[in-house]
């Protein structure tokens, strides 16, 4: 066959349609922005009754709850198929990444299915998030020693 991997790689590059970057970015900007605006609206609402710290915490909880709720009938997935990073980056994306495997792996049991797989997608974020905060904590401590 008249084909080698390097030439084939070029052929694939020519034949594969690129992602519509401008459209994807517009979707991500609008949906991501809308989720954050909703969050700000909720925060303002909570500020009527509570102080700043508690209102912020309640906003996060409310967004996570709403994202989990929208994940159940598949609405979050449908929105994310268009919005991409717009639904992935906010805290709602994290909620979706925890709830979706919990639903999916229920068939394998509460321990070996839901329990074992629930952090299958979010796990790396938690692991490396914790590692990053540890590294930053050490740096912060060292900077304090120097300064």
């Amino acid at each position, binding site marked *: *066959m*008249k*084909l*080698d*991997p390097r030439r*084939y*790689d070029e*052929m*694939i590059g020519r*034949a*594969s*349609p*690129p*992602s*519509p970057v401008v459209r*994807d970015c517009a979707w991500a900007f609008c949906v991501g922005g809308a989720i954050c605006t909703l969050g700000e609206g909720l925060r303002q609402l909570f500020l009527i009754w509570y102080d700043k710290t508690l209102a912020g915490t309640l906003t996060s909880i409310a967004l996570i709850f709403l994202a989990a709720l929208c*994940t*159940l009938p*598949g609405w*979050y*997935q449908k*929105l*994310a*198929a*268009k*919005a*991409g990073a717009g*639904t*992935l980056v906010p805290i709602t*994306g994290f909620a*979706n*990444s925890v*709830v*979706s*495997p919990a*639903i*999916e*792996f229920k*068939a394998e049991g509460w321990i070996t299915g839901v329990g074992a797989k629930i952090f299958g*997608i979010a796990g790396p974020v938690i692991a490396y998030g914790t590692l990053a905060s540890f590294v930053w904590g050490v740096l912060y401590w060292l900077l304090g020693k120097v300064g």
Partner: protein
Amino acid sequence: MRRGDTLLFEQPPVVGAWAAAGGKKESEGPLASAFDFLTQDAGFAEQGCENWEQAESLLQRRAVELCLRKADIPRSKVDIAFAGDLQAQCTASNYTMRELGIPFAGVYGACSTMAETLALAAVFAATGMAERVLALTSSHFCAAERQFRTPLEYGAKRTPTAQWTATAAGACLVRAHGIGVPVRSVTFGRVQDYAVHDINNMGAAMMPAAASTLLHYFAASGTSPKDFDAIFTGDLGEVGTALLREQMAQEGLPLDNHKDCGCLLYDTAGQNVQAGGSGAGCSAAVLCCKILPMLAAGQLRRVLFVATGALMSQTTFLQGESIPGIAHCVELGGAQ
């Protein structure tokens, strides 16, 4: 008779009956009216299925039952069944066969399984090892997604080169003698790997296998693409199709009569399937809904059915291995 990699049958066995079963998306596609069974609930909740794996098995069983009903034979008359699917350890087929009680040989060829089982069935029938042989396969979007990608409800964006796993099953009954669509020859493919690592571009990963098998077949049989009414590959999708046509033109055998099962099962522009359909059930459904009926009706006389498969697993993909492809070719029809 063996010529190169191609096994030519002096007394061709025939595909005597066939049936296809599909789900909701397939019922909205261009081949909907040709399916023998379609369901809007591919989870089969009403039938008591508790998970997607059971549902796929039930879909496969529907295809077998309809195929045997069309052939008008009881399952006890089937000498052997070749079946496979995309689930790990081919469990959809295993559980189907648990219910049917037919002698069974499990086959894994990823999306090439329909051509692989059909080819094996034809060899068994042609050599007198069996009189009636079942060849079947299936895939289920929901069972495949959770095994190869992410949970269904997880919000992720699909790339334009990705393909949509069909929720479909196809079953063919091959007979050593009788009326049906003749199987003239079969060519088992060789694994081809051109260092494609993108799991969202399976068409590109599988194209070299399709080209390789076609070149082997044309060389062995002394034919060229224009000797056929149509050459069906499956499931290269739009990207793999463009690559195959470019490659075959380069080889001096341009494919003017080529169609791809991944582009036939769905309306690729309107059904949100990105580059087209895939999954073992995709080429099986197109074979049973379009290719075999058209051959039986005389609308096509001689075709090649070349189903392609990507032979990686989630484990090898995560370990950074490239994606090996395979393609098996079945020559159907021709003068009796």
